């Protein structure tokens, strides 16, 4: 059975991500084993990798680096072996070259760009951005056809990729914000599919079937 490694680096909300992956896998004809792990050898064998994340960019990056061999195993599986990867919320932001939360901090640099504070153009809009928002996506296996769906967001920072060509979906919060990115086998979503009910579970299921 193919395995999905859900990276455990002390981030909250791991349980929700695990349960959502299992539920989404259950809707597919082919089973998937969900493994919550920070073990390099398990990650090396995994068929897919999901990186969750809540909290601050720098704290999450620190936590990844502190686990022996974790970043090396992830980088090898994703960047060298080309295994499908999904980053969620801060897990997506970590793909960037650098983040600016609590001062500049280098990210994974798997997708060039910067993570900056959300600054909605309208004064009445609050930060953090919390709630359901329309996500407009280009045609891609993660969203299937060009489509609009409603997903749950909770974030104060946004990812601005250097190459606009990697932006797969956008949302509007006092201006256009990056909702999803994809470059070859590496994808990320700013919203929380594991908290976005049917639409979110469907996206997770499509990730499990994605063959980049």
């Amino acid at each position, binding site marked *: 059975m193919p395995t999905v490694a859900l990276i455990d680096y002390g981030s909250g*909300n791991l349980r929700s991500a695990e349960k959502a992956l299992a539920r989404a896998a259950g809707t597919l004809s082919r089973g998937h084993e969900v493994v919550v792990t920070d073990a390099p050898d398990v990650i090396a064998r995994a068929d897919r990798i999901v990186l969750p994340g809540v909290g601050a960019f720098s704290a999450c990056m620190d936590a990844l680096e502190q686990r022996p061999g974790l970043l090396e195993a992830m980088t090898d599986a994703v960047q060298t072996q080309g295994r499908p990867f999904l980053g969620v919320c801060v897990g997506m932001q970590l793909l960037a070259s650098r983040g600016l939360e609590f001062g500049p901090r280098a990210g994974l640099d798997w997708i060039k760009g910067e993570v900056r504070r959300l600054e909605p153009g309208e004064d009445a809009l609050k930060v*953090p951005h919390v709630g359901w928002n329309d996500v407009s996506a280009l045609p891609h296996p993660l969203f299937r056809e060009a489509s609009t769906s409603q997903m749950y967001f*909770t974030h104060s920072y946004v990812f601005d990729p250097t190459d606009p060509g990697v932006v797969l979906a956008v949302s509007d919060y006092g201006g256009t914000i990056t909702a999803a990115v994809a470059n070859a086998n590496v994808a990320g979503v700013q919203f929380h599919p594991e908290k976005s009910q049917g639409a979110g579970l469907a996206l997770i299921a499509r990730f499990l079937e994605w063959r980049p």
Partner: protein
Amino acid sequence: MRVIPCLDVKDGRVVKGVNFTSLRDAGDPVEQAQAYDEAGADELMFLDITASSDGRSAMLDMIARTADACFMPLAVGGGVRTVEDARRLLRSGADKVSVNTAAVENPQLIAACADAFGEQCVVAAIDVKQVEAGRWEVFTYGGRKATGLDALDYAATAVTCGAGEILLTSMDRDGVKGGYDIALLKRFSEAVPIPVIASGGAGSAQHMVEAVRDGGASAVLAASIFHFGEVSLSEAKAAMAAAGLPVRDLR
């Protein structure tokens, strides 16, 4: 714009929730949560009114069972006094933790939770009573204790400490069903940069529209009008949509 039903939970059982006709067990939080999801709730708030420690572990089990079955945002509050209390709730499956009395007495609790879990996890719940025009005082211990603190000052402190949202309850309006305190909401939503959730006073769908449109609230929370079926979630959302406010589509 979010509509958030609030369920009172005691010893892991829902004691105040909607008696949806489809439910086999109205006290079962999982059934309640699923029914609210199908009705279009944007989030759920569980308020733990348990006093005993046995009840607290039942609460954790209840959150876990709900989070395993419902893939929607869950906020939990009531009796959170330490970072460890918050951690246990989050580990069980809560997405946000609401802190009230303990945070008023020691705002560093907000900072510690925000540092540990991220500001999006921390809701500062503030119970207020009006003391004069344009001035509100913070009350703690479920409204039993006056603190002498100016509510706007405390809200500013909560923001500085890293709260992600403010759940603002008007004790003057709570249970009266005459509408949210619009002046209060307007004052706070203009003063703080983070989302303000309106609580206390909802009696109709139109009251929810007013809280958002006139009060500037980012979300509305209600318990008893949903509980007693006076207003349905779909009515609340239809009224908001009719007023031109952005709401999540009902499926």
